[in-house]
């Protein structure tokens, strides 16, 4: 009986999905956010009343919806990778398009949220709480936008056959980082008081 062996792909042989450099970048980026979390917690201790009062304008429901959108988006990109691994390029593109769509939904919901704050006369300069709110959510939103551009480029390249699983795994690593950062930002800014 003849045994058959599957040729290991690059990502299987070194057990790192996508480029290792992306993981280094992601970890550094996560450390930057950890410093922001610490600054927020430190400044809050100086004026707890102001932070608690300002936080009341935020909707925990909207924060929850934001979280659900990003969690679903993360799952969609995993499905896109799985489809590509099974040579199902069309299905991979469908799930990548769904990932982009959920990312777009997150941007739109943040747009409405900011508009709501501006309408209430609140801006980054209002007080320290809102400075942190706009800085942290704004920096996170910039990461979402960068991820959308990268995934958009990947979509085109996968469609043309010039990029494959390895590139998509790298894009997914970044996209999951956007998701996991929000998982901590949500309780920090919206829930805890």
């Amino acid at each position, binding site marked *: 009986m003849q045994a058959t062996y599957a040729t290991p792909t690059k990502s299987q042989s070194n*057990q*790192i*999905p996508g480029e290792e450099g992306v*993981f280094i970048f992601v*970890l550094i980026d*996560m*450390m930057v*956010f*950890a410093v922001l*979390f*610490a600054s*927020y*917690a*430190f400044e*809050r*201790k100086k004026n707890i009343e102001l932070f608690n009062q300002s936080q009341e304008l935020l909707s*925990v*429901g909207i924060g*929850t919806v934001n*979280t*659900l959108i990003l*969690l*679903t988006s*993360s*799952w969609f*990109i*995993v*499905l896109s990778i*799985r*489809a590509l*691994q*099974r040579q*199902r390029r069309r*299905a991979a593109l469908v799930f990548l398009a769904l990932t982009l769509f959920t990312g777009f939904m997150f941007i739109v919901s943040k747009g409405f949220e900011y508009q709501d704050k501006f309408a209430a006369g609140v801006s980054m300069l209002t007080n320290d709480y809102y400075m942190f709110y706009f800085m942290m959510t704004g920096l996170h939103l910039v990461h979402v936008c960068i991820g959308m551009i990268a995934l958009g480029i990947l979509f085109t390249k996968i469609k043309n056959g010039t990029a494959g699983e390895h590139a998509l*795994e790298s894009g*997914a*690593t970044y996209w*999951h*980082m956007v*998701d*996991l950062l929000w*998982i*901590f930002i*949500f*309780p*920090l800014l*919206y*829930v*805890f*008081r």
Partner: protein
Amino acid sequence: MLNFITLREALVWLLLVTATIITWQVAEGEPLTNLSRTLLVAVSAFKVRLVIRQFMQLRSMPRPWQVAFDGWIMLAASIILIGFHST
């Protein structure tokens, strides 16, 4: 058809969604205490670890990478817990 959808990853997504809804319900209820805050931070840390290990596929990566990401989770969770601990 959709045979690339694994039950494991679907369950991970369902667990993440459930944990988020529970957090929302707790947040909309009684004022938070040190205990409820600790539990919510633990839930958030658990969610982040699920995303990192299951979606980011860190569970198949070399050990130093896993330690580095677990270290970040511990750091971020500790910062939030210490920052919000009321005496």
